[in-house]
């Protein structure tokens, strides 16, 4: 059997990285991001990355780490609000950004992974997002053509994974991870817990192993919280 489990992140990324590559990453905000693999990308020094990720992290966490080291040349994202270094690089023209509505981005990643090169959506019709894109009328209503995304590499974070690469995500940390896993020519997963074959219930596997070529036990699980909102105990 092909050994999918690697001893660490550098080994799992070995041979996959090159300057100018496209990398899709799971996560929403700082939730469900592949912290261990992002750090390994920082350490790799790979530059000119096009990062397909809903958000850009914060200054010192998430993809923000790769922005600080200027390893990212372009972001394909829906929202990048929480990052000062991002703002600086964007305003000076060092960084290119392709804004994509969140649902369209999720669907573009799913489509790329499912062999669908383009699909039509109502989202963004009549706005800047649709400028320069083809439109088409279905049943009297106008839709815009959006393209599937295939990445050279996808990095995802899961809760549990088995040696076959089967993955289970936890709660809202699932977010973009399943689509990212499908849209990578190669997909590397980091998991909080490695489990034995057969431990994952076949009906409850979110990402089947066919989509995951390599996996590691995550060593960075800080799971930083962006908006710690609390209610009073008494309420």
């Amino acid at each position, binding site marked *: 059997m092909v050994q999918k489990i690697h001893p660490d992140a550098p080994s799992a990324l070995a041979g996959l990285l090159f300057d100018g590559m496209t990398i899709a990453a799971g996560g*929403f905000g700082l939730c469900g991001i592949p912290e261990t693999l992002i750090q390994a990308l920082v350490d790799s020094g790979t530059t000119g990355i096009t990062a397909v990720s809903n958000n850009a992290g914060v200054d010192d966490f998430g993809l923000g780490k790769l922005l600080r080291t200027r390893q990212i040349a372009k972001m394909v994202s829906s929202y990048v609000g929480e990052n000062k270094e991002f703002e600086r690089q964007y305003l000076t023209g060092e960084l290119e950004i392709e804004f994509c509505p969140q*649902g*369209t981005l999720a*669907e573009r990643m799913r489509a790329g992974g499912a062999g669908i090169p383009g699909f039509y*959506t109502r*989202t*963004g019709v009549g*706005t800047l997002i649709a400028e320069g894109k083809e439109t088409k009328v279905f049943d009297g209503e106008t839709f815009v053509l959006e393209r599937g995304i295939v990445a050279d590499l996808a990095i995802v974070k899961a809760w549990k994974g088995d040696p076959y690469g089967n993955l289970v995500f936890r*709660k809202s940390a699932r977010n973009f991870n399943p689509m990212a896993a499908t849209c990578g020519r190669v997909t590397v997963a980091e998991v909080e817990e490695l489990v034995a074959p057969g431990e994952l219930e076949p009906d409850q596997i979110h990402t089947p192993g066919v989509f995951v070529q390599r996996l590691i036990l995550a060593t960075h699980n800080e799971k930083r*919280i962006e908006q710690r909102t609390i209610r009073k105990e008494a309420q």
Partner: protein
Amino acid sequence: MPWTRDEMAALAAAELQDGFYVNLGIGIPTLVANHIAPGIDVTLQSENGMLGLGPFPTEAEVDADIINAGKQTITELDRTSYVSSADSFGMIRGGHIQLSVLGAMEVAENGDLANWMVPGKMVKGPGGAMDLVAGVQRIIVLMDHVDKQGAAKFRRGCTLPLTGANVVDMIITNLAIFERPDRQSAFLLRRLAPGVTAQEVRDLTEAEYEEAFA
């Protein structure tokens, strides 16, 4: 006397019907959840992939893996389910969510909505707002009647880049409520805040509308 933010949220909450699936935007719209009437059972959706949002957690309940689209920590209910973001926007784009309440910078008399960018300022991106206005069955905007400079926010046409074209069904400001029966119709002024006159609203509004008090 203009409505407070909480009163505006309560007015939006009055639009919720039993069994509705609802997406509440960031900011004032989140307050709507505090004003849902007894007997009205509503399921809140968050576009990152959570259906059935509970209240904020206690200190002991905080879980970094349970957040809403505003990246706030949140809790589960006995109805909660999680889906991928693709499946979550399938609910939204597919018209399965009955109502969304959103903030706005500008709304035009034809229902155009602008709430995502100001040219010349740093653009943070549309997030999920464009998908919500394009897919959710009914869109209610909660906003101040005028901006900080006193300029009308309900306008002939939006001056800012659009989030969606012809997508707004109801506007609740601190001064008045506008509504239209469908997206081919003009907005009607339906209600005034206590002590606010129709003439005052007319003076602070650029959009054309008709008066048809409820």
